[in-house]
């Protein structure tokens, strides 16, 4: 899921008439094992970006789940095409690696609508220096682990079939992607703030017809020392997570009290347009309040018989400067 969020396999394309070109590209991956419940990996979605990621996924009872992640994206100063990864993660660490293929490889034909050579994936390992200290909750000092590098050749594709262009901004590689569909939601609360370059957005959605509870998504994006850092949570909250006034009631009100890693609760009143309370989130290496005057809140409560499409996210759309580019593209 997070691989997709960081733009896996995407390549630059050039449009020309009925056809378009998907430029050649290279991607790489190094699995670094588990630490404190997090799966740790180094991911190169293309030859220009390197991302450290930590992901923890818990399956709870009644098909509920809880996912937390942290992403650290920097530019790759090496040449991935030739198996070299060199990147600095500020004071958190650095990598200087060279890929050693094992000889095992796999070829895959181009996607439907495209023609050209096959994508080649070489399996092996990375050697060299790797150290990373992830905000106090994990520390990696070895490059041991399964690895691969995939080379995608330049492809000629029917228009619309080529993969999207890689985003230029590091920020877009760590921005949250909407996981929970808002199309059939009948209650949706979105609270966000942006301060000193840090974006914090929390969304709670109740899909029509579902049992009590709400799906909650938190995304935090910030720049730091040439890095883009993203933290996030996706979870299914139980009964009591999101309580709202009924459709048509004014002033509309809402209370949000999601389960761990969140703590406390927040309330919103349309009348005062204030988002107050003790709500916060405690992630590995991060404890962050999620209320305050800097937050903008959008509340949507609809009657499914009057608004058949449910709470369209764009009814609660934040101002463009509060919306990460990746989030915007994912929804459009």
């Amino acid at each position, binding site marked *: 899921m997070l691989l997709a969020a960081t733009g896996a396999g995407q390549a630059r394309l050039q449009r020309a008439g009925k056809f378009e070109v998907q430029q050649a590209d290279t991607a790489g991956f190094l699995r670094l094992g588990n630490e404190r419940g997090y799966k740790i990996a180094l991911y190169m979605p293309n030859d220009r970006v390197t991302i450290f990621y930590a992901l923890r996924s818990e399956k709870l009872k009644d098909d509920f789940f809880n996912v937390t992640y942290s992403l650290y994206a920097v530019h790759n100063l090496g040449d991935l095409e030739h198996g070299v990864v060199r990147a600095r993660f500020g004071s958190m660490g650095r990598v200087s690696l060279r890929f050693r293929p094992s000889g095992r490889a796999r070829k895959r034909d181009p996607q439907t609508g495209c023609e050209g050579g096959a994508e080649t994936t070489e399996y092996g390992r990375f050697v060299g220096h790797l150290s990373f200290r992830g905000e106090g909750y994990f520390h990696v000092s070895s490059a041991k682990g399964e690895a691969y590098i995939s080379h995608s050749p330049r492809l000629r594709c029917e228009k619309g079939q080529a993969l999207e262009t890689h985003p230029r901004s590091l920020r877009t590689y760590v921005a949250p992607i909407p996981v929970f569909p808002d199309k059939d939601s*009948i209650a949706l609360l979105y609270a966000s703030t942006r301060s000193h370059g840090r974006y914090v957005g929390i969304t709670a959605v109740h899909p029509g*017809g579902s*049992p*009590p509870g709400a799906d909650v998504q938190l995304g935090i994006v910030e720049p730091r020392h040439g890095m883009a850092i993203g933290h996030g949570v996706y979870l299914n909250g139980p009964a009591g997570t999101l*309580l*709202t006034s*009924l*459709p048509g009631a004014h002033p509309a009100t809402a209370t949000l009290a999601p389960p761990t890693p969140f703590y406390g609760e927040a309330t919103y009143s349309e009348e005062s347009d204030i988002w107050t309370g003790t709500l916060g989130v405690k992630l590995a290496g991060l404890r962050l309040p999620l209320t305050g005057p800097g937050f903008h809140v959008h509340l949507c409560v609809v009657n499914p018989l009057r608004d*058949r499409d449910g709470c369209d996210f764009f009814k609660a759309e934040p101002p463009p400067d509060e919306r990460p580019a990746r989030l915007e593209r994912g929804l459009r």
Partner: protein
Amino acid sequence: MRMRQAAVAVLALTVLFCVPGGAGAKVVHGRAPARWIDIELEGSNGYSIHISVNQRRHLLLQVTKEGYAAEYMTRDVLAETDRVKAKLLGLGTISVRFHPRGPVRHPSVFGCGSKKRPTVQPGVVRGTIRFVGEREYTQVKVHEAEAATEKPTSRCRYGAKFESNSREREWVSKFSAEDIGALFLARKYRPGTIDGGQVLYWAETGVRYETASGRVPLVVYRHVRVPAPASTFSDPHPGYLTVSPPPPLSGTGTFARTPESVFTWEGDLSVQFPGLDPIPLAGPSFGSEYCLRESGCIRQDGDYR
């Protein structure tokens, strides 16, 4: 014999249908009869009783009176072309032999085309028919009764139906709530669309009696259909509904949205079938659906956990 009673999924709208003896029909004791047998009886307290055996060797005893019907179905049947023996788990026994009397007829059947008329041989059955409904709400004991054997022609449906005529599909708003073993339907119409009121209520329950070995000697479906005035179905704004249907239903059911954005179906609504205690028709275990013809539907899963 130790028995277990379990609710079964109710068969909404069409409770009984005639199916030709095809691949799905299992023969339990020898050759399946080529004909059905139908026996008409009068029970006590004004109930009509109809006994039939179909090609699947299911014996069905139907008890009806006005909008009420109960169907007792057993597979513990010894059925041949002209002989039936069955036990109805503490409610009665049937052991009769058919004797033809009079010429064969080809009557028309609701739901079947004119080319699919069955072949009916009238006659009498002789032997023992004894049935006592729960708490003796009706009973019958005879040694001879009018009957007929029927040779079905094709896949034609008949039996109890919620919609007895096509105008009953012209509802304005409707509500249904379903749990395992219980179904409640309510439909509201414009004035003059249906007879007897503006709202049509339907309640149906199903219960299966099962032995420790898993055998199912008896399944009982009961339903009632009752028209009522518009005042019994109040939906002042979309998403909020209160129903207070007339007897044999009683109490009130309310469908409403909560601050959790969940639609609840609550209240003391129940149905009282003859010979039984009231059966609840509202509560958190019921899944529900409320529809406005012009706008769509709201569906809410029940809490089956």
